[in-house]
């Protein structure tokens, strides 16, 4: 079953419940994605478009309860298929008064237990994660080396602390940390952001996972370091070819690393296809949002074309109160009168407009 | 009420006596030796020697450890102790004591026991009077001019002036010359005050980390080895807990049971409640310097206004007797013909009217614009329920006749200063404890007015002064008796105090203790006679 993708996300919905407003915040609302072995899938979108929550949902790290997750996530590691979302609804009880849900009580304990039971064998071992702001992602009190060693001892057949340490050092070298033996004994506060991120990456790779989720790995680092890290990731990709879910709003990073790209907007995927096509400004058909997004990237290309940079006008829709129709409708500059009604009132499907290229827009309806 | 103002005076002595001298070694009275007695103390002793110590807890210990030249028995009679006999000169200015020759000091650890000699007596007196010595006793022995030893077993005291009942004063406890580390004076830094050695029936063995004082029988006590092997004094910080401790056999004896616990113990067959008559009475003392209280009718009115019997009955289970005058009841000087004033509010009001007081707008009496409002000062103590009850009851009674009393609680020290030094008070509630009920000169003689003198109320009355002096000068017992009865009558009528009652003290102890007799104000004087049947010694 090599053909089957490594990870298949089907119509994922992750809602948070806000007690103070007594409503659901629909962070992720019907995302469908899939990653094949060795593929790097880039996910782009403004902040608040639900990229990170998607990632966290996959690894069951969505913490802020009470919330609800539904849909299916199929993960196929070493020939076994895991459904990462067993039926969690049973742990949620809704109390509705005159149509509105006034209270959501959630059996946190049961919920967590279920998730943990499922995730225990996968997390870290099969699915590793890289986070943004690496400095805070590392344990402040523990030596960097030890943190990596821990991952190794947890998930690999490294025998004894000695060997584990060796492997840890080996990984530190792999991620191009200068004088790894020295760094091994450093505490996070002793390292620069870039080094921390390298260490985090080393920690993630050290357990030789089959899926790597990089959640905005370059955010919170200054520009030069960013490109360094991207470069590193590129090399590692070439070297190991680990399937990667790369989340970033840094289009350039995506374009450099991703095979396929999914564009998220308002908690759902609006466009999904091969990286070159999706990221090529003139490629058609294309979702207006993607166009706008690309147009807003500072790049020689853009400037030459227009002589100025455009911005995506308007704001990301409120996750609490999503429009009935197309989520981009309010900001869309390509609505034509004959489809305006549809745009306003009916949400378009994500349909395959070309082999392997999906767009969610009425323009591409026919 | 364990802190009291102690006035120490003395009584007429029968002149000469030569009692039988029982040999050292076991008492051959057929009663079993052995057993341990643990008794509870409220508070801890400051020091364990007779000179620097100043409260009841220490007093009890010193009574067990030391002896005086003479002793005073239950019947207030002078009995020989360290001195086997004595002589007074005709002019009663010199007293000669002939000491026992068979008395040994408790051995110091690692040393031979030394014999008791005249040197020790002289030493004790000298050290007592030394300016650097910290002791409450000095003032009591200023009447002695000199002391000299007549051989090893004779001491002669010369008095500055002949004073009445000098003999009883020689009951002061004698300490050994080789005891204190400093030869001239005794301060509380001296180790002796914590590890005293005496001649008494019990020897201080150890002080545990819990401040329990363990005393063991003195094998060669000159009156014969005491029956009980060990006395243990256990300090308590809470009287309720102390009573509980007695009831749950943590201790065997409480020397002075709190009145409120008496019913509980009475019901209990395991314990004996033994009354013993303390030579004391409680009173409200008035500051006659205050213009409001200068008029005796006011003071009398107060006496009429208070239903003392009711208070006694409901707060002290009637354990006591009302007193009508300045002498402790049971003393020969007490005049039984004078009846305690009855409870009679109308009379009280009438008296106040005569004194010129009329009810003001707010109900409180007043005289030419001046309200009849008085301050009643009371010392703060942790265990002060009885005091509170009496004082507040008093306040209540006087309110009923339109007198406003402001009750003020002050810490012990501050209270003493404002009462005895600054005389800044109208009324106090206190009680006198006598070791002789017949001499009240320091309480009411006008010469005793002044800072730190006992006539704190500033009461002065020539007639009373006269009578007091007269009674001091007459040596004829009957005459003195009539004089004192007269004094009693006058003071009862003058009411410088409102005389309240004398309480029956109860000691509660486990019934295994036998032949327990308790001295009115020295408590453990007869402890060497107590015993525990062999069966109960466990």
């Amino acid at each position, binding site marked *: 079953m090599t053909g089957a993708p490594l990870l298949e996300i089907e119509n994922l919905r992750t809602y948070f419940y806000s007690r103070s407003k007594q409503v659901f915040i629909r962070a992720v609302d019907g995302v469908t994605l899939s990653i094949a072995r060795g593929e790097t899938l880039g996910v782009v979108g403004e902040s608040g478009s639900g990229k990170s929550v998607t990632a966290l949902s996959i690894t069951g790290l969505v913490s802020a309860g009470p919330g609800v997750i539904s849909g299916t996530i199929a993960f196929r590691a070493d020939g076994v298929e895991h459904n990462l979302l067993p039926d969690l609804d049973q742990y949620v009880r809704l109390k509705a008064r005159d149509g509105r849900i006034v209270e959501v009580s959630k059996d946190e304990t049961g919920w967590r237990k279920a998730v943990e039971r499922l995730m225990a064998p996968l997390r870290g071992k099969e699915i590793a994660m890289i986070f943004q702001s690496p400095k805070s992602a590392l344990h402040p009190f523990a030596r960097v080396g030890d943190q990596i060693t821990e991952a190794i001892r947890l998930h690999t057949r490294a025998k004894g602390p000695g060997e584990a340490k060796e492997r840890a050092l080996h990984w530190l070298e792999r991620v191009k940390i200068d004088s790894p033996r020295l760094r091994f004994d450093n505490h996070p506060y002793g390292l620069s952001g870039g080094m921390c991120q390298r260490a985090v990456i080393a920690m993630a790779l050290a357990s030789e996972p089959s899926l790597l989720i990089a959640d905005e790995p370059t955010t919170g680092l200054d520009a030069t370091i960013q490109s360094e890290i991207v470069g590193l990731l590129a090399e590692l990709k070439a070297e190991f070819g680990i399937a990667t879910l790369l989340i970033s709003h840094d289009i350039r990073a995506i374009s450099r690393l991703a095979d396929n790209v999914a564009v998220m907007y308002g908690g759902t995927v609006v466009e999904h296809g091969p990286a070159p096509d999706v990221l090529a400004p003139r490629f058609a058909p294309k979702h207006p949002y993607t166009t706008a997004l690309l147009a807003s990237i500072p790049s020689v290309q853009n400037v030459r074309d227009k002589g100025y940079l455009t911005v995506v006008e308007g704001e990301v829709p409120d996750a609490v109160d999503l429009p009935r129709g197309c989520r981009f409708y309010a900001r869309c500059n390509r609505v034509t009168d004959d489809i305006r009604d549809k745009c306003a009132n009916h949400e378009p499907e994500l349909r395959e407009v070309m082999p392997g290229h999906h767009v969610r827009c009425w323009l591409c309806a026919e | 009420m364990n802190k009291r103002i102690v006035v120490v005076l003395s009584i007429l002595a029968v002149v000469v006596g030569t009692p039988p001298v029982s040999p050292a070694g076991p008492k051959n009275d057929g009663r079993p030796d052995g057993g341990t007695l643990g008794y509870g103390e409220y508070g801890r002793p400051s020091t364990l020697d007779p000179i620097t110590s100043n409260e009841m807890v220490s007093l009890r210990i010193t009574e067990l450890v030391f002896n005086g030249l003479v002793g005073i028995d239950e019947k207030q009679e002078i009995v020989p102790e360290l001195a086997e006999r004595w002589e007074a000169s005709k002019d009663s200015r010199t007293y000669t004591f002939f000491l026992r020759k068979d008395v040994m000091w408790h051995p110091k650890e690692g040393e031979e026991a030394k014999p008791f000699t005249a040197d020790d007596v002289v030493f004790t007196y000298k050290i007592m009077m030394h300016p650097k010595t910290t002791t409450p006793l000095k003032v009591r022995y200023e009447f002695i001019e000199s002391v000299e030893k007549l051989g090893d077993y004779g001491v002669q005291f010369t008095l500055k002036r002949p004073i009445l009942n000098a003999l009883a004063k020689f009951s002061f406890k004698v300490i050994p010359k080789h005891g204190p580390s400093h030869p001239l004076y005794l301060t509380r830094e001296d180790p002796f005050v914590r590890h005293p050695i005496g001649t008494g029936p019990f020897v201080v063995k150890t002080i545990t980390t819990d401040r329990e004082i363990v005393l063991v029988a003195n094998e060669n006590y000159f009156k014969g080895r005491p029956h009980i092997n060990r006395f243990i004094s256990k300090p308590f910080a809470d009287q309720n807990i102390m009573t509980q401790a007695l009831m749950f056999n943590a201790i065997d004896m409480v020397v002075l049971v709190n009145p409120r616990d008496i019913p509980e113990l009475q019901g209990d067959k395991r314990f004996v409640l033994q009354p013993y008559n303390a030579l004391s009475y409680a009173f409200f003392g008035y500051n006659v310097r205050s213009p409001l209280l200068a008029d005796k009718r006011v003071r009398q009115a107060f006496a009429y206004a208070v239903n003392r019997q009711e208070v006694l009955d409901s707060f002290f289970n009637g354990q006591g007797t009302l007193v009508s005058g300045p002498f402790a009841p049971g003393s020969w000087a007490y005049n039984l013909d004078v009846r305690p004033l009855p409870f009679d509010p109308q009379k009280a009001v009438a008296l106040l009217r005569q004194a010129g007081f009329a009810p003001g707008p707010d109900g409180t009496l007043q005289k030419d614009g001046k309200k009849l409002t008085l301050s009643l000062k009371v010392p703060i103590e942790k265990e002060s329920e009885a005091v509170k009850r009496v004082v507040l009851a008093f306040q209540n009674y006087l309110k009923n006749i339109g007198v406003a009393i402001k009750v003020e609680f*002050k810490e012990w020290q501050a209270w003493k200063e404002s009462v005895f030094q600054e005389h800044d008070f109208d009324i106090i509630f206190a009680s006198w404890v006598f070791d002789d009920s017949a001499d009240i000169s320091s309480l009411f003689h006008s010469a005793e007015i002044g800072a730190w003198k006992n006539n704190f109320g500033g009461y002065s009355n020539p007639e009373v002064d006269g009578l007091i002096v007269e009674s001091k000068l007459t040596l004829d017992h009957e005459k003195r008796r009539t004089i004192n009865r007269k004094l009693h009558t006058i003071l009862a009528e003058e009411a410088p105090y409102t005389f309240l009652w004398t309480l029956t003290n109860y000691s509660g102890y486990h019934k295994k203790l036998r032949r327990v007799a308790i001295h009115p104000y020295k408590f453990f004087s007869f402890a060497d006679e107590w015993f525990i049947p062999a069966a109960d010694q466990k």
Partner: protein
Amino acid sequence: MTRYSQIAGEGRDASDLPVWRSADTLDLAYVGYGLLIVALVLVSYVLGVFNWLPHDPEQIRFDLLNAPPGSAGHLLGTDFLGRDILSRLIVAIQAYFLPGLVAIVISLVVGTTLGALAGYRGGEVEVLVTYVNNLVDSFPRLVLILLVIAAFKADIYYIMVIVGVTGVPVVASLVAGKIAFLRQKHFIEAALVLGLPSHVIVLKHILWYHCGPLLVIRATIGMGEAILIETSLSYLGFGVQEPMPSWGNMVQAGANYFFQGKFWPSTAPALAILLTILGFHLLGDGLNSILEDRGGK
């Protein structure tokens, strides 16, 4: 997903409910209880002041010493002088009212001043304030009070001054901490940029807007502490003195009869203390979590 979709769009009119509706019911219960207690305290204070009492709290009944509850119209029974316990409980509030206020005012005023200085000025001042705080914190409260009693006198106001002073560090660190937090959020810089004079910033924006609730909560807790301290001292004989009733000296007096199986004289005031202080605590806690919840979302 239909299961959740029905409420999906209904955020519109549901947004921004008043605090009391959005808050967790139990927190509300806490606060409610706390407020009830506060109200009770105030009411009984008024009752005491105007002497609207079931009985004369001073009236001694020789025939009714330590009478059990309900006897002869004494709802909570009588004490060791046959005085009505209920009336005394009510009157006793007054024993705390002013002294407690003194303690609270001292700790709040001094505390906020120091805290604000430390947090706002920072640097040397902060170090100094820290030192002072640690210094005060070094004294066990009760022992210090005993010291002062030994030195001066067992006056409730003296004691409350100590309680107030020893309460300073907590307040100071609360305020300073808050300010430090605001600094992190560049709140103060922003204000400065707006050209606000610093006293306005400190007083109005920092203390009033951000520390207000904290301080209110501290005040209630401070009151509770005052009551407990007074109780302990009453046991030692140094508390509020008769004839003025205080819950402390009532418990103390009543406890003398505890072992004789007469519980009510001490239990009634003890419960009063318990419930009151509990009320103060819960009020503080409830408010805390509600306000946080608000701030959080």
